[in-house]
């Protein structure tokens, strides 16, 4: 009795779709979508990652606990990113990197 063995054809299709998606993400980068460039890149990368996790890493056949573990991990990553963004988004300030070196008046310690 061994775990679910996926057919080779499945792996090939997943590999092909990953290569296509890479081409898509590179192509999308050359199109000027303004703000949405980043969003598209992340969506494509996220989809590729979920393909790898679901099929290559056999998450499809794992127990609920493993799926839950991954979800918990991503949730806390979102908390880390989200709450730091709350601070930086509400800070209307970009630090102006003053040129601190020998010549300028603001002398290094």
């Amino acid at each position, binding site marked *: 009795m061994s775990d679910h063995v996926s057919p080779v054809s499945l792996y090939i299709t997943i590999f092909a779709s990953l290569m296509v998606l890479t081409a898509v993400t590179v192509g999308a980068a050359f199109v000027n979508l303004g703000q949405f460039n980043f969003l598209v890149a992340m969506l494509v990368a996220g989809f590729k990652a979920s393909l790898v996790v679901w099929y290559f890493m056999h998450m499809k056949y794992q127990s609920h*606990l493993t799926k839950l573990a991954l979800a*918990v*991990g991503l949730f*806390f990553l979102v*908390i*880390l990113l989200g*709450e*730091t963004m*709350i*601070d930086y988004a*509400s*800070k*209307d300030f970009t*630090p102006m*990197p*003053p*040129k*601190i*070196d020998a010549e300028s008046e603001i002398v290094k*310690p």
Partner: protein
Amino acid sequence: MLDKLRIPERHYLHEGHSLRSWLLTKDHKRIAIMYLMSISVMFFIGGLFAVGIRFELATPQGDFVTADTYNKFFTMHGIIMVFFFLIPSIPAVLGNFLIPPMIGARDLAFPRINLLSLYIYWIGGIFTIYAMITGGVDTGWTFYTPYSAAGSNSHVIPVALGIFIAGFSSILTGLNFIVTIHRMRAPGMTWFRLPLFVWAHYATSLVQVLGTPVIAITIVMLFVERAFGFGIFDPARGGDPVLFQHLFWFYSHPAVYIMILPALGVTSELVSTFSKKTIFGYSFVAFSSLAIAIFGFIVWAHHMFVAGISTYSAMVFSFLSFSVAIPSAVKVFNWTATLYKGAVSFETPMLYAYGFIGLFAIGGLTGLFLATLGLDIHVHDTYFVVAHFHYIMVGGAIMGYLGGLHFWWPKITGRMYNNFFSKVSAIMVFVGFNITFFPQFVVGYLGMPRRYHSYPDEMQVLNVMSSAGATVLGLGYVLPVIYFLLSLRRGRVAGPNPWGASGLEWQTQSPPLTENFVEIPIVTGEPYEYDHVPAKESHLV
């Protein structure tokens, strides 16, 4: 006449006496004993620095040691106590020893990884002790950049490496506990029949696994900035020191819950056992551990209210920080309700549990002062904060650790320690602690900042009181070492269940077999059933 109790012939300590049998063991109990020895050494070293600090602060002028040495004292005191004593203390010693027998398993899920975690702890410890001996580090245990990256010329990198390595030891312990609790419970041991000690360790492991990597990456970024001159946090190149604080506190606040949650678990066990009554509101106490672990992750910026974060985000984090106080309050109220109509006995572990409830309540409540924005502006980075976290760490975590050690010592060694001196030490610790840290609340509100080796003259009396209390506290900690070691030779044989407790681990012989159970038990009853337990307290006077 009590039948003469004898130490059983076969048990885990008799499985081989060679050094090899200890250093290459896969038995979670032996690994717990080695952890016990290692962290006691670390506690002693950290304590020495604390003595140095209290001597320095006895006089307003900084005349006991130079400023630089004092900075190294409080930095090493912080690093060793936090990363090398408090974080591993209860999980690595009591958790390692007791979780398998408590859930009816023969060992943890990954025994070899458990041993690896011990070796990683030793390597991390050696790095830190090496750095301490050859010069020490003076950045404070928080390593704030740009001082730790460019300003300080002390051994920041070796100590940061030591903490980076010790962090993996904490991750591996957490990982081991999560898989063991999920997959290796005895038949019939459902989640709601688990002892609350196990619930608390499950929540702690969640925090260990999810928090520690973030401090690992923060140390990597600090390392590349300091060693290779990269500019991630360097303000001259546009980097932001506040970003370091965000990443540091994302781990370090949940880390304080790694330190306190196991002690909450121990106290639930002690209160229930010594009032011979099932814990009041079992599911509420169990879920409050999980709630503390999860809420612990969303509140970290209450350490940064004055660090230049925006007003809006300060309000968001202050609001969330109050959410963490609720589960702690629920636990304290449930312990109080457990005592109601119980059969309370005042053994040494129960004295520690009493001390814990008192001090943890004060520690938790003073947390409310610091979460309140208006007050935190005034008391941040003063001795008020020092007093708050010492009430939680020393009053809570260490009292819980000592309570747990006194409670399970008969199970670990099979022998009982001296009853009178252990009660004296419990009282000394409680009294010494309060004299040491209560004046610090007052001197903190007066405005004495943290990490000062000299202070205005008018604050001297309060500091001298604190230093006096520290000596009583120090003595209170030395006593247990003496009577624990003596009990190994001359202690009374304790028998399998000296306290009449209801846990699964009390139904095996003490000290237990290497494989914990001859026969994996089938669990039927509720977790805290005292009616059917043979209440043979052989030593009740």
